């Protein structure tokens, strides 16, 4: 099966919306999807819920989710809510 990677930039002002849009694209993805978090300085509870949902949908479709450019503060939050293992992280 061909690997098709999708690269999506996440805007800090609309993290939830961006993740929902990304979720809709999961149907056309095979392999992995990369979400660029480099412009996200903080996340809130709604963003965490959106990430959880996104990870669940990706799991269902067998798509690997890669988070790129996650800052240390956001990384710690993901760790605290046990979301760390659901994603791969790249600088």
């Amino acid at each position, binding site marked *: 099966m061909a690997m098709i990677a999708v690269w999506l930039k996440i805007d800090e002002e609309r993290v939830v919306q961006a993740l929902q849009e990304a979720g809709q694209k999961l149907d056309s993805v095979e392999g992995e999807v990369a979400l660029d978090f480099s412009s996200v300085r903080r996340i809130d*509870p709604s963003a965490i819920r959106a990430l959880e949902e996104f990870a669940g949908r990706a799991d269902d479709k067998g798509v690997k989710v890669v988070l790129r450019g996650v800052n240390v503060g956001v990384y710690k939050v993901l760790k*605290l809510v046990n979301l760390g293992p659901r994603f791969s992280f790249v600088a």
Partner: protein
Amino acid sequence: MIASEVIEERVQIPTAAESLSKERIAYLEGLVSQARTAAAVFTQYTQEDVDRIVKAMVLAGLAQAQPLARLAVEETKLGVMEDKVLKNMCATEFTYNYIKDKRTVGIIREFPERNLVEVADPIGVIFSLTPITNPTSTVLFKCIMAIKTRNAVIFSPHPYAWRCCSEAVKIMYEAALKQGAPEGVFSCLESHTLQDNAYLMRHKDVGLIDATGGPGAVKAAYSSGKPALGVGPGNTPVYLEKTADVSTAVVDIIVSKTFDNGTICASEQTVVIDDEIYDVVLKKFAELGTHICNEKETELLSRTVIDPQTGFMQPMAVGQKATDIARMIGLSVKPGTKLLIAPILGVGRAYPLSVEKLFPVLAVYRAKSVDEALKVCIDVNHAGGLGHTAVVFSRNDEIVRRFSAVMNAGRIIVNSPGSVGALGAVYNDLVPTFSFGCGTGGGNSTTDNVNIYHYLNIKRVARRTQAHMWFRVPNQIYFNLNAVENVRQFPSRSTIIVTNPSMEQIGHVDLVRRNIPEGTRVHVTVIPDAEPEVKVVMQGVEELNFYKADQIIALGGGSVIDAAKIMKLKYESPDADLEELAAPFLDLRKRVVQYPTAKVNHARLIAISTTSGTGSEVTPFAVLTDKERGQKVTLADYSLTPDVAIVDPQFVMSMPKGLTADTGIDCLTHALEAAVSTYASAYTDCNAMQAILMAFKYLPIAYEHPRDEEARTMMHSASCIAAMAFANASVGVNHALAHAFGAHFHVAHGRANALMLPHVIAYNAAIPTKFVPSPYQKGYVAHKKYATVADLLGLGGHTIEEKVKNLLGAIEQLLDQLGFPRSIADLGISKEEFERAMPELTRLAFDDPSWRSNPRMPLMSELADLFWKAYAGRGPAKVASATQLQTV
């Protein structure tokens, strides 16, 4: 905490989540998940974010102080609405005033002088139980603390105070959200069961339980296996002592005991009054609207407001007005009576009113003496109030001191109301709180007034500190030929020369005597030419006392100088216990046993060394033999260092060859061990390196040509210079081995050192099996130090390994030149004998404090290995080729 449970709990909270439905578990899990997410998100917030949210919450709480108070009284039927308003205002305004400028995010405190920084970390999810007695104020207080510390809280209010508490949570939550707090940061159980509490207390994502409630809740919290803040019940004794300001005391007690109808657990329960003022005090109480019960009325109260079965207060009385209580029990009092006072004759089950009463009923006791008063206060304290609060009214500081010493209470309130005083920040500088830690007496983990620092994990960032070091040597050192003439410059009325017989025979004593200023009374104390014994030293001390000496001149080798050091110590400080002073220690500056500083006599110690090896004239060490007990006592303290050292080569010109070699190698070993010591510094290195250089150059000459004045002068100075190095950097494993071996087989110290030296250098230059902790050095440098020595000696070599090998070769060559035996076997010690001695040798070597500053921590097996290497011995050629140096 406290009275809550008059109403609810004599029932234990279950220790497991029994019989919870799936739906209920899902609900509770939802609460925890929401709180965990909020707490995680909260970690991203700055101090400024937090402070902004806190201020908005405080303002919201202040604005709602009255409605919340009204709601609390309506729902709980306890307390006084007006007082509850004040409580709500204290919980918001006073708490804010205390915390507003305090840092709770990131670095919260710095101690630059200690290289320490404290960094705050939130706890995460807190499960909080709140009481019926102070329902809304406790919620307001805890919400503010939680936000200030970036924590999320799930509240479990007392079931009879749920409505007012959930309203308080809602007010705080909405105010916080408006300022950007994370969604879900506060939640409140919508109705609850004891099973809910048990489930949440044991939940893996709950970080802390803050149980402000009755004994059952507190016990359940502590039994849950989670970190918990649980605060216990009280039974506050008050001592009203005869020097007190009675008018102030009476008003304070009324204020406190009637505040919110006595529902604060720190409020006064039994007032113990000195006989001298008892009548005046009761009269004053009566004048101010208090009803003093007669014997019959007291008996009535005892039967009605205290449960005769349990001995605890009756729920129906908790938080009620005095007049309502009187009406309930059929006691006739004046309208407006504030407080019912019941005289009691003792404490305990026979005197029911001596327990905690969270309503305006106060027991009083007439004490005939201070001791009796203190004993009754202790009894009250132990009758259910351990760890909580105690109050004393007195102008006598000694009384306050005695009271504080015997009370088991986290708060001792002096000359002020107990309840409002314990809350803090009103009558005193206690930290404001609505949770009183009661210490172990109350089954709690803290005696503090619980506040923000209990809601934080405080991390201490400890940077490496630059260790304090030292370089201590005698004030004055005179060296080179005829240095002894400097003795003239020291005035003395009475001088004792401590020496040994040979010094007299060869005229050294006369030489010294000629240089003592005229008019000085001089006495010569001759001691045996051997390691000093306790008996010999004490005889010397007697002579010092007899002649009232103000100067001691030690003339001889290490043994004589050591004896003189100890004589001076015992002469100046007769109570000094030599055995105690010889107690082991790791760091001179932190030793348990301190040397005496108080002195009954004063004597200058001038040390004139007559050998070139021990360097005792400049060191703080002295060795003493206690033959009666069959033990050696090693003393070490800079106070033992001689005041003046004379290093005059004319005293060593006649040293025989063997002694020259032995003492010379001792000097070289001192310098080499000081150079690689973990205590080495630039100050000791310069001395060690210089001594090594001088010893390598002049020891062979002094050995071959004993009358060579320059060689003798330089070796005598080398010995002193090496001693200055090891007096401050200490020695190492070579000395530990040599001490053990020399003592067991009666081999001269220098000779024993020589047998070990090449093997120890090879050992120290290799990668240690075990590194030794040393705050004084960075990294492992012994091999580099040896390489530096090789460079200094011009031994050549390109790499560190080569240089260390060349140094070993040079040492082997020197030992050959000086005619040393090259192995222990060469001494005629059989292998079997050596093998038999090995356990004792390794034990002695390991117990020897000398190796503590060695760069490599020796294992017992390694000490044995070194002994065996010394037994086999190696020639120079072998060392150069066979030593497997694993340099780092």
